[in-house]
């Protein structure tokens, strides 16, 4: 099965366009046509042409940048779709699929019926595809690219004989050389003596010929299905009690956790969707502080979310999916208990269902002299405590946005008012000059250098003051314990 215009079909499916259309890709500093639709092809454009040339040919050409990764994803989607015909489906290059339909054709009423069904389905999906069906992979490839249809079993030559030698999956140089020798079709190649051909071109053309004609075996590599961590349960009678829903969730969770265990993975986020009798669906999302696959630990975390669900006339379908999965290798149990860490992680997950997992944070040290950038606040679920804390000089326990006070000159004021308190400086230690980090844009540091002072007042409060010599002013930014 070959998709000659996979990329442009994909884009046109999402945004239908009338008229010539092309996808462009930047190659070697030039925008070249990557893929184009049938109309553009009829106007004489072809792949690999530079976009400016194409525009000269066809001024109303519409174009869009190509996205090869998205095309590959689309091909995988098509691969998944093709498993409706047979279980063995592999990829063929970047725009083709190879299906081993041995023993599956009769399910669709024969090979011809299967082909027409495939064509119909593809046409309905708006994807142009060309399908070749033959005894061997090589013959099917040749038919899909050069000519269409189905080769009668046992007699490949009848269908392949007239096709050009390019249909044998040979590189371009070999094809040109063969044509120069006058060998234009596969039948002619077959009729030639083998030994001189092998001497002239190496084993490649004959190997491909043999593969196409079934004299050499060739394997199909079907892609494995990616593991899917979703299960569902349909209930004969609607349920509404919280205990019942939790019991259902427990059963689903058991199945999901078995799959996770088989793949040595752990769920990081789970989504439980409850469908009510009136087709309304509600979902309960759960994010975990660490990957888990232990049903007994996950289930209690659902309780809070399930309690909030409106059951209405009752719930008749439940679906549980692990939406985010991380690898979680099997670990040796140790006699040294790691129980407290696990308990802490469970608590963080549970608090996360209440206030959001990213609102539980921990401090990580950062390499900066700027007081407010001397640490990073990171979500506790996604970080581990690390690094060491160094402070060369005492730092305040509390920081706040700078609050201006009255003062002048480079030394801290003797008397000042801060937060409606009259304070008298008893001892001032400093200054400690901190320069702004010019490589980072920060509005708070627009005032330039800061001279920090540790000021102890006669009233007791110990404050962290700073003076900005470049734009004179005094501010309080923190308080010591």
């Amino acid at each position, binding site marked *: 099965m070959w998709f000659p215009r996979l990329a442009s079909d994909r884009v046109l499916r999402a945004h239908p366009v009338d008229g010539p259309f092309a996808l462009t890709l930047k190659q070697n500093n030039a925008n070249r046509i990557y893929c184009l639709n049938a109309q553009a092809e009829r106007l004489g454009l072809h792949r690999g042409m530079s976009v400016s040339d194409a525009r000269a040919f066809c001024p109303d050409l519409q174009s869009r940048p190509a996205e090869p990764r998205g095309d590959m994803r689309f091909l995988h989607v098509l691969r998944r779709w093709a498993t409706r015909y047979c279980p063995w489906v592999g990829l063929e290059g970047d725009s083709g699929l190879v299906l081993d339909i041995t023993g599956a054709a009769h399910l669709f009423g024969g090979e011809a019926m299967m082909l027409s069904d495939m064509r119909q389905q593809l046409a309905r999906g708006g994807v142009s595809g060309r399908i070749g069906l033959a005894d061997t992979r090589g013959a099917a490839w040749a038919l899909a690219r050069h000519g269409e249809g189905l080769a009668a079993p046992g007699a490949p030559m009848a269908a392949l004989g007239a096709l050009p030698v390019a249909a044998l999956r040979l590189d371009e140089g070999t094809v040109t050389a063969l044509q120069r020798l006058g060998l234009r079709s596969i039948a002619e190649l077959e009729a030639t003596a083998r030994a001189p051909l092998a001497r002239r071109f190496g084993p490649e053309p004959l190997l491909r010929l043999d593969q196409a004609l079934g004299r050499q075996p060739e394997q199909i590599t079907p892609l494995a299905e990616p593991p899917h961590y979703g299960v569902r349960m349909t209930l004969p009678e609607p349920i509404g009690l919280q205990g019942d829903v939790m019991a259902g969730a427990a059963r689903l969770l058991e199945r999901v956790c078995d799959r996770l265990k088989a793949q040595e993975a752990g769920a990081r986020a789970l989504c439980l969707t409850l469908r009510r009798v009136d087709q309304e669906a509600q979902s309960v999302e759960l994010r975990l502080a660490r990957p888990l696959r232990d049903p007994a630990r996950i289930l209690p975390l659902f309780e809070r979310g399930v309690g909030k669900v409106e059951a209405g006339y009752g719930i008749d379908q439940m679906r549980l999916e692990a939406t985010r999965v991380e690898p979680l290798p099997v670990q040796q149990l140790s006699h040294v208990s790691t129980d*407290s860490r696990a*308990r*802490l992680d*469970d*608590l*963080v997950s*549970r*608090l996360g269902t*209440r*206030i959001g997992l990213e*609102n*539980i*944070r*921990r*401090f990580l*040290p950062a390499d900066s002299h700027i*007081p407010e950038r*001397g*640490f990073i*606040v990171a979500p*506790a679920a996604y970080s581990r*405590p*690390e690094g060491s*804390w160094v*402070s060369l000089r*005492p*730092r*305040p*326990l*509390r*920081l*706040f*946005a700078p609050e201006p006070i009255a003062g002048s000159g480079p030394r801290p004021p003797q008397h000042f008012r801060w937060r409606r308190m009259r304070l008298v400086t*008893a*001892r001032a*230690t400093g200054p400690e000059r901190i320069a702004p980090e010019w490589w980072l844009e920060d509005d708070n540091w627009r005032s330039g250098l800061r001279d920090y002072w*540790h000021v*102890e*007042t*006669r*009233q*007791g*409060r*110990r404050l962290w003051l700073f003076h900005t010599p470049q734009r004179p002013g005094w501010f309080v930014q*923190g*308080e*010591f*314990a």
Partner: protein
Amino acid sequence: MSDLFDSFPLRKARVHEACGAGASGFAAITAARAASDVLWIHETWRPEVLNPVGLSAFCDPAKVLVAQVKTQLEALGVAEETLRDGAIPLVVIELSQPLTLTAGRRLQLAAKDGDTTGLCLISEEMGSNAAETRWRCAPVFDAQDSTLMAWEIIKNKAGTLGVWHVRWDRASRRLDVVSPVGERPGSARASG
């Protein structure tokens, strides 16, 4: 005078309160005495944030988890759940409104269930009846030392009241009780 260490490592399975300008320092020293992790509940709208670099003079900031909550209701919910769970032995809660009798009692019961300690940082005259002890903490100026604090216990359900001058020794991370400034030998002028 009674001994600070009768009541200072705060009694377990109870919720305590601290007020005054030195309440954060009191909480930091309590956190330093805690065996393992500490949960610090902070309301996001408050301008004052905990500075881990400053906290590192008291305890390892790696053991502090901060819960950012939007309202006091959320703060109390998080505090109750954590106190009851028992995985984190100390919970520090910054409160902006007085606790109702019910809320205070619920926290006490949760702390009792989980065998954990709670510490509410409140402002003056916001105390709850349910609190086990209430401390008024204020930094004190001293000519020689810049960590001197006055800790006054103003409510104690199971003990006597008292006032102490304490000092935090950064190097050894130890709390020293010292005599009040005026009564110390050789500091007659400083008290003036």
